[in-house]
């Protein structure tokens, strides 16, 4: 398992569009990708659960990547967060 911390810079936070884009991106990998805020961890593929975390701009989340392609997935997802969230 690999993980990284990320502070959200999108002014509206993780609302419908970034949540959807994240889910789409996560489907590219075999690894399970989870996002944790305040001790609550959800699978990124679960769009509605992700939206219900209501992650706001300036908040820090931890992203966990677990699975056979976790090295590639880790780099891919990290770059995706930096560019879009």
């Amino acid at each position, binding site marked *: 398992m690999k993980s990284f911390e990320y502070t959200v810079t999108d002014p509206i936070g993780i609302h*419908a*569009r970034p949540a959807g884009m994240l889910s789409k991106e996560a489907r590219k990998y075999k690894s399970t990708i989870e996002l944790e805020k305040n001790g609550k961890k959800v699978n990124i593929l679960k769009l509605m659960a992700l939206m219900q975390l209501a992650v706001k701009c300036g908040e820090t989340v931890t992203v966990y990547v677990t699975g056979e392609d976790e090295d590639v997935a880790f780099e891919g997802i990290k770059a995706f967060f930096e560019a879009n969230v």
Partner: protein
Amino acid sequence: MITIQGKGVSTGIGMGPLYFYRRAKTELKRYTIEDTTAEWLRFKGAQAVAMEQLGELAEKAREEAGDEAAMLFETHQMMAEDMDYEEAIQALITEENLNAEAAVADTGDQFAEMFASMDDEYMKGRAADVKDVSQRILNILSGAVQGGIDSPVPVLLASDDLAPSETIQLDKSKILGFITSYGSSSSHTAILARTMGIPAIVGLGDQLDPIYEGRTVVVDGGTGAVIIEPNDEVFADFVKKREEQLQQRALLETLKGKENVTKDGKSIRVYCNIGSPEDVDAIKVNDGGGIGLFRSEFLYLNSSTYPTEEEQFEAYKAVLTGMGDKEVIIRTCDIGADKQIDYFELPKEENPAMGMRALRISLSRPAFFRTQLRALYRASAYGNLGIMFPMVTSVWEVRETKKLIESVKKELEAEGLPYSDHVEIGVMIETPAAAMISDRLAKEVDFFSCGTNDLTQYTLACDRQNNDLGRFYDPHHLSVIRLLKMVVENAHKNGVWVGICGELGADLEMTETFLAIGVDELSVTPRAVLPLRNKIRSIDTSVTTPAILASIESDETPKY
């Protein structure tokens, strides 16, 4: 001939047969099933069809109204295939032997409730989306047809009110106008009508009777009148009025995207005055360059108690995000005088126009003022914000306000809340006092916005609420124009820009004068933007300015 009266929310004249929108009637079936695998596959089939429909709708919305509109349906797509949503439906089917329709309906309700109970205005709004998606899958499962227009000729569409997904699915070439029993100027139907440039009338209530189905009707979106079976004379009048409006609109349409620049190359910014976040749409339709005056009073007037920081923050944020990187100038609370609010418990005054109002109230109630300033600065992270203060008469008022702003910023920083460092600060010039000391005020701020309604009232000693003053109340009075000229000169000496946000800004008789004295921005009601642009583009200031300046400075009174 029968005339019924509603509220016009999109201008234009429409004539044609009245047609009532037909909704698919679905009664929810609930039963237990044996073959859970088959039922699950039935759901998967309906889900696939929904995905396909939503994909087509997203494309249609993108073509008709842009990426923002397409997002709605893309969000619906994501919800339709969400893992949690699917799993919840699967559990009801396989574990409780529920039929697919009931499983979808129950899951939709459950998810909608989850969103509705969230402590976040944006997420609360998503409850309607979950319901909309679930209804779509239900319609597919039960074989119900989508509602729509089944008419060979274009019609005036009547309904109670339409949901966003209903409006986007309509065949627009079949609609001459909208007439609804409910709704407001901010309902989806009204917004769509304005975007399409067709008339819409809302709030007709029970007067809009289905017995009128199929009859010839004329609607006037300007006045809100709906005339059923008009006589020949009335019909002919409306045909003529419609021609005139179409010609005028075609002319204005050609001005969209053009610059506000005179024949000799002088440009002036044209912004909009608005009173609520819903008006942002009208600014886009009319091609306004920004918001020169966003009145924050609606927050106070639409409430029975002081609006919270969070409520204010959400409203400001909505406007700022809606306007993108365009400038948005929000005026702090301008209560008092003609705008009285019970819960403020303002003492009764003999002469409220000269009493406790606007910034005077804010400075006398620092806790209340801080709440608004905190909400404004928090919202500043979401766009290009300017803040202005109404009813300034002295420099100390501005300094005290700026001190409050500094302490609010420190507070936000300590709490780790983001705000923008580029918020422009301005004062309204609406008293002769402010105009006379504008050289000193200019050293404190980034911009001036002249509220000509109050400036005229205070300069001429003419109550603007008093309709009997007639010729004594002269909105073009030389004293006001001289004050404005002085304000612009003092501002420009200090690198401060000047706008006009009173009604005078949209007065086409005054445009040459504003250009002559060097006003930088005119802020007007959204529908006045294009007529004003038309006027600006017809002016050659090298011809008009010298004569106007000479006349302003002259001690000779012209003979009438």
